[in-house]
């Protein structure tokens, strides 16, 4: 049958305009990044603040030394903390803290000092410390989320052990032996590249972000389609529309219009993120191959087609939006399933799990994007090609089946069909 693109584009334009005009669209556009920003800032900021609060509260350390090894140890500990709420900021604030050290003859007096808040913590060094390494630390409370108070104690112990045996420089180095260590790792081109905390973070964030954007884009577009079909079916307007256009024209218009809405949303999010991405890119240069970008576009196109077709089918066989959502949630879940195992994928991007998921159509788009952007990952060209072919083939199959089910399901009201009935529709349509 011939498809009138004029009609399909008329439908696409209406779907697009109606969707982006909705208050819900604006809420999603602004609310989603705001939510992520809030969660990220709370998560990163709170860990830095937790460490700061722990060190700020750690004003003094009581020591009960049964070994006598620490008589010459320093009577104060100087330590510092990087306040890296924004890991890609050019200038990181460093805060200094001083902890006074008080020696106690016995545990009873130290206990009393701790209870009266004369000291913040008490460190008990048993006589057999050298042989066993056993230590006891007493505090009024402990922080669940930060162990920032352990590092200065460790440094003080090292300093105490080497006091008088090493010069001050050696002693300082012994206390912080790996403070300035630099790690170099192989990049995709086989060159060793400096890898710091920021690079490590970026190595995670880049594939995560790319895959998340792709997943969101596919899901949002698919959800709009589900909503559009289910609500139109619910509103009983479809018969009037189908008198004027074919089911295929309606389907094509919806795929185009609602897919564009999803793309606009993601483009808006990217635009919002550019200032932050820009800052990160200045701090840690990123080289993204154009091939990856082309692959991302292909995976979006086929991934969207795949999920949108499924959502269309679901929307057309169910009677209302609530019922449609119950079916759709499983497909949405499969799109995001790779995020559950993202650490396994990124730590072994060429392993069987990552390779398998990137070939399996429902998870292919997000997984392959993770693999392609993962650090030091080199995905063979044939795997990308095979994955794309499988995804494209599945998408077209899903579209064909969905179009057949769509044509019949749209005008069926009441009972949701069972699987044999859906198969019959797919054959008959």
């Amino acid at each position, binding site marked *: *049958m*011939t498809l*009138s693109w*004029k*009609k399909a584009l*008329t*439908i696409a334009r*209406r779907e697009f305009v*109606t969707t982006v005009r909705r208050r819900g669209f604006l809420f999603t556009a602004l609310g989603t990044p705001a939510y992520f920003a809030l969660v990220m800032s709370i998560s990163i900021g709170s860990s830095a603040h937790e460490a700061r609060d722990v060190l700020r509260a750690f004003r003094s350390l009581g020591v009960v030394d049964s070994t006598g090894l620490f008589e010459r140890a320093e009577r104060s500990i100087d330590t510092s903390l990087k306040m890296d709420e924004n890991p890609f900021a050019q200038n990181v604030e460093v805060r200094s803290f001083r902890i006074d050290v008080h020696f106690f003859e016995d545990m009873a007096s130290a206990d009393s000092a701790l209870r009266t808040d004369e000291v913040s913590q008490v460190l008990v060094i048993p006589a057999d410390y050298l042989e066993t390494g056993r230590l006891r630390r007493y505090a009024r409370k402990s922080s669940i989320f930060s162990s920032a108070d352990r590092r200065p104690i460790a440094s003080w112990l090292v300093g105490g052990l080497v006091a008088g045996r090493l010069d001050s420089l050696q002693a300082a180095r012994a206390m912080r032996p790996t403070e300035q260590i630099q790690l170099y790792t192989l990049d995709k081109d086989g060159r060793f590249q400096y890898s710091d905390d920021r690079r490590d973070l970026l190595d995670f964030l880049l594939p995560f972000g790319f895959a998340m954007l792709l997943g969101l884009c596919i899901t949002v577009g698919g959800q709009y389609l589900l909503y559009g079909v289910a609500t139109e079916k619910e*509103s*009983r*307007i*479809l*018969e*009037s*529309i*189908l*008198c*004027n*256009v*074919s089911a295929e024209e309606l389907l094509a218009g919806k795929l185009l219009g609602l897919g564009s809405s999803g793309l606009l949303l993601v483009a808006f999010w990217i635009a919002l993120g550019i200032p932050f991405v820009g800052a990160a890119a200045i701090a840690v240069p990123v080289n993204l191959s154009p091939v990856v970008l082309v692959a991302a576009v292909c995976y979006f196109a086929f991934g969207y087609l795949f999920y949108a077709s499924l959502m269309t089918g679901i929307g057309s066989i169910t009677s209302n939006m609530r019922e449609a959502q119950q079916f759709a949630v499983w497909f949405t879940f499969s799109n995001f399933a790779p995020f559950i195992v993202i650490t396994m994928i990124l730590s072994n991007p060429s392993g069987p799990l990552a390779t398998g998921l990137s070939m399996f159509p429902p998870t292919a788009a997000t997984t392959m994007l993770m693999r392609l952007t993962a650090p030091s990952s080199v995905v063979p060209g044939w795997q990308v090609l095979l994955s794309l072919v499988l995804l494209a083939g599945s998408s077209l199959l899903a579209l064909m089946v969905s179009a057949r089910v769509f044509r019949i399901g749209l*005008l069926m*009201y009441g009972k949701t069909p069972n699987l044999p009935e859906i198969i019959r529709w797919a054959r008959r349509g």
Partner: protein
Amino acid sequence: MLEVREVTKNYDGRAVVNRVSFEVHPGEIFALLGPNGAGKTTLIRMITDILKPDSGVLLLDGRPVGGDRKRDIGYLPEERGLYRGDKVLETLAYFGQLKGLSSADARAAATGLLERVELGDWLQKQVQSLSKGMQQKVQLCTAMIGDPRVLILDEPFSGLDPVNVMLLEEILHERRAQGTTILLSTHQMNKVEQLCDRALMIHHGLMVLYGKVGELRRRYADYAVTVKLDSDAGVPADLPGVRDVSARDGGFNLTLESGTAPRDVLRALLDRGAGVESFALASLPLEDVFVKVVREGLGLDHGMSQAAAPIEDVAR
């Protein structure tokens, strides 16, 4: 002209429309009748190219319906709905564009139609702010926009108040005068008698009645005549060819024997000196015909084998 020839549609091995044939001419209002579940909606969906027939053809001016010919058919379905959040004018203009009009032409046509149905003050209102009757009029406009050559209206009067029923009747007469082919599906038999030229009734997917509305009503009146006399003497006895006489509406209903010509009965009455004020072929209200056909299964035996046969053969 709309032609439906030997059209059949099966669902799960059951024929819901079975070899149905009929034609509707330009400028004609044609009734499509049948009890619930008779197959009317399926038949309409095939005419509007929403469904494809398993066999048979549907032609509009000699060419198959569907494709680019969708613009020639306007349809008001029984299952109604509109985009509730959209403005009235936008909604209608959208349907105009789907009918192939440009954006500007669609808006102009939509404005004209909405003014015609007395909704000119509601163009910029949201559909959901309209009453049910108003929404129905908007929906009627969605069927009429683009001036389709065939207008199919499924229960167009339901939900309308008497004033709007009159308005709709006026519009139907206007469209008929313009040469539009109108196919009306309704259970309001008085409207069929009042508006329609011809009718088709289907039952269990089969054609059971097809012909002019007046003829259908007479055919099912048990082959009778109605007589009014100017005296109280009553109908003379022993009238040849008359099987039964009963009083009705201040006159008499004379059931005739098969083969008796009504004019012979009239002549016999006059010969016997009866003062005949009026003499007419009896006719049943269409509603009674409908009930009779559905309850008694009349015409069913003939429907499938003589689907396209003329009314005389099918009905009796």
